[in-house]
């Protein structure tokens, strides 16, 4: 048993940290925040050149065929630098395509996603649905070319820059995943900005939009489940990287900030909060990397491991953020300080791919039934 990253995984870690420190320092993050789409296509190209847009995709589709642990490594660095980008959306979408059995669409769609030449996203949530695909109600009707979609999807990540939308709907009782091109007629989208300044959410409306079918029925369910789990790993690693930044920044501040003639880090009230931050950070790390490993290995514990990680990391990152701001005092509460960028991103990650309450209930089903 070896919990350490392998030598090549450590190289990937170093390479991605160096890359993002250089390519996306916090000034760049703030610049992207103020841009329309929170996306820099030149930067995206450089990320793709590293192969990270196709990290886990098969080599035949221009991917690197690396493991989900490697995906977690890169995602952690992305969270650590607070990168605004369609990385989560595209990774989710490409995993969904890759998890389907549709060889033809894989061949059509995956290579350009892997090479960073196109961007995709998934439109899952209905007005009333949650992250359990069983609650999706948007109905589709069969057509010659595939399906026709009408209805609305909310909280669609990066729809504004996506070339392809994978839309989850239902033909009668059967789940269907439909592939919608950005140019399709009847497609309308509106930005619905969230608390997280580094991500872009959209409301997407469909009015008789024609689409191809990626997968349907049990196959669609299985592919969707796995892609959501992969998305959850990405979100956990993103949270982990953010936590790590907050912890490090806060401990540094606690060492240098003086009050009452001493560094505030010498007061137990501050020390003990820092210790708890470390405890949560370490626990989140165990949970995230184990989940990535178990899911990749198709270990029977994979399902529960992902739920455990997502529930824990979501809460831990918020609590670490709370303490980080508190220990910084007033300055940590300003727009000028970078803490709030991480704090807000942690909230969007908390919801993405299911909040803690959702995952606890899923977990209860696994352990009770």
């Amino acid at each position: 048993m070896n919990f350490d990253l392998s030598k090549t995984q450590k190289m990937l870690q170093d390479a991605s940290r160096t890359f993002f420190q250089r390519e996306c320092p916090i000034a760049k993050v703030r610049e992207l925040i103020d841009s329309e789409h929170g996306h820099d296509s030149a930067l995206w190209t450089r990320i793709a050149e590293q192969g990270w847009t196709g990290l886990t995709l098969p080599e035949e589709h221009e991917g690197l065929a690396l493991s989900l642990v490697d995906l977690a490594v890169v995602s952690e660095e992305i969270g650590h630098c607070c990168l605004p980008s369609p990385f989560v959306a595209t990774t989710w979408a490409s995993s969904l395509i890759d998890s389907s059995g549709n060889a033809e669409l894989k061949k059509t769609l995956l290579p350009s996603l892997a090479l960073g030449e196109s961007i995709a996203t998934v439109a899952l949530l209905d007005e009333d649905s949650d992250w359990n695909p069983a609650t999706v109600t948007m109905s589709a009707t069969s057509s010659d070319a595939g399906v026709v979609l009408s209805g609305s999807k909310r909280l669609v990540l990066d729809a504004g820059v996506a070339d392809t939308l994978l839309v989850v709907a239902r033909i009668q009782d059967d789940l269907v995943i439909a592939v919608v091109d950005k140019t399709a007629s009847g497609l309308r989208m509106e930005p619905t900005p969230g608390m997280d300044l580094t991500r872009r959410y959209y409301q997407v409306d469909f009015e008789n939009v024609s689409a191809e079918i990626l997968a349907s029925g049990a196959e669609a369910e299985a592919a969707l489940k796995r892609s959501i789990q992969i998305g959850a790993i990405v979100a956990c690693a993103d949270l982990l990287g953010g936590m790590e930044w907050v912890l490090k920044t806060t401990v540094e501040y606690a060492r240098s900030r003086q009050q009452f003639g001493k560094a505030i880090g010498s007061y137990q009230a501050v020390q003990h909060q820092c210790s708890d931050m470390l405890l949560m950070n370490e626990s989140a790390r165990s949970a995230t990397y184990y989940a990535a490993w178990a899911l990749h290995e198709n270990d029977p514990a994979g399902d529960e491991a992902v739920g455990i990680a997502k529930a824990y990391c979501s809460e831990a990152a918020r609590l670490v953020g709370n303490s980080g701001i508190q220990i910084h005092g007033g300055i940590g509460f300003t727009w000028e300080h970078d803490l709030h960028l991480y704090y807000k991103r942690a909230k969007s990650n908390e919801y993405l791919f299911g909040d803690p309450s959702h995952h606890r209930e899923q977990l209860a089903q696994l352990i009770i039934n």
Partner: protein
Amino acid sequence: MDLNLTESELKFRDDLRAWLKENLPEKPIKAESDNDPEYWNALRDWQKQMFEGGWAGVTWPKEFGGRGATSIEAGIYMEEMAAFDAPERVGTIGEGLIGPTIMAEGSDEQKEFFLPRILNATDIWCQGFSEPNSGSDVASLATKAVLDGDDFVVNGQKIWTSYAKVADWCLLLVRTDNDAPKHKGISALLVDMKSEGVSVRPLRQMSGESAFNEMFFTNVRVPAKNLIGKLNDGWRITITTLMNERANLGSSIYIMFKNNLDKLLGRMKELKRGGIRLADDPINRQKVAQMYLELEIFKLTTNRALSKIAKNATPGPEGSILKIYWSEMNQRFVQSTMEILGDQAQLQDFDDGSWVHAYLRSRGNTIEAGTSEIQRNIIAERVLGLPRSY
């Protein structure tokens, strides 16, 4: 023990209600921008109107133009103002903090000049206490005042100042003796914000707005007669002011949170998630009930404190208990809200972004007006009599 309002308390409340029904501005006073002069003028007008109706400085003694209200009546006042959603009181720092300080410590000349101008909104006040390097350790402040002829010459920087952009005057703490122990070398000056060398820069919070400011003082000349109290006796005066800051807020905070909770309950009844009405989810029910009960207990403890102040005249360090209670309650409150409403609550356009704003703004609650850590030190040392920890 009798928690019914007395007859005079009822009369106070009913008179206020009647006056508010008659006088409340028809449409809410809202700022178009951070620097909208119309907004501030309207607020000054409202303060003047309240003064003319006899509803400014309600706790001030009648001799100074106030109404001589008891602490319980003051609680009623805050509660009603919030319940009627009355406009922000731009004179609140003057009324609540500066006025009482001037009454207790000011010269006759100072009382005569400043007090009426506070009540009728001629002067808006701010307070210059915190500095970038003295947050919790207020007494370590470095802004310096040196006597030069008939004037003090002030140099330094303050931070976290509400109303600084529009204030006419500032109660400024300055160091007047560098050699004395830190608490013994501080004086309090009444500074005209229009003085040459005063500049103000807004400070944006993580929740987006700029309710606080930085103030810079560069060779600002302050007439020596604007010293309040004795030279180097400013720390004692500060303590009094800070104590006043913590009392009395509870009643309006309660209504503010209560309104949010009602709004949440309304949303829970309307919205569904995964086919279930939010209000029917047993987990949501536990959460909202916990919010409700914590909030009600806050009101009760506030009322107990007011009832005690009504007998003992001055608020004590117990104010720290209420400060910790409401600030940390609000942080649990907003998190529960986010959990109950689910992912839509993170959107800036959901309910006008009010949940997002409440969520983010709450992080400041345990920092502003004395961090939770400092409040716990105060309780441990001054209420429980434990030895000093720092």
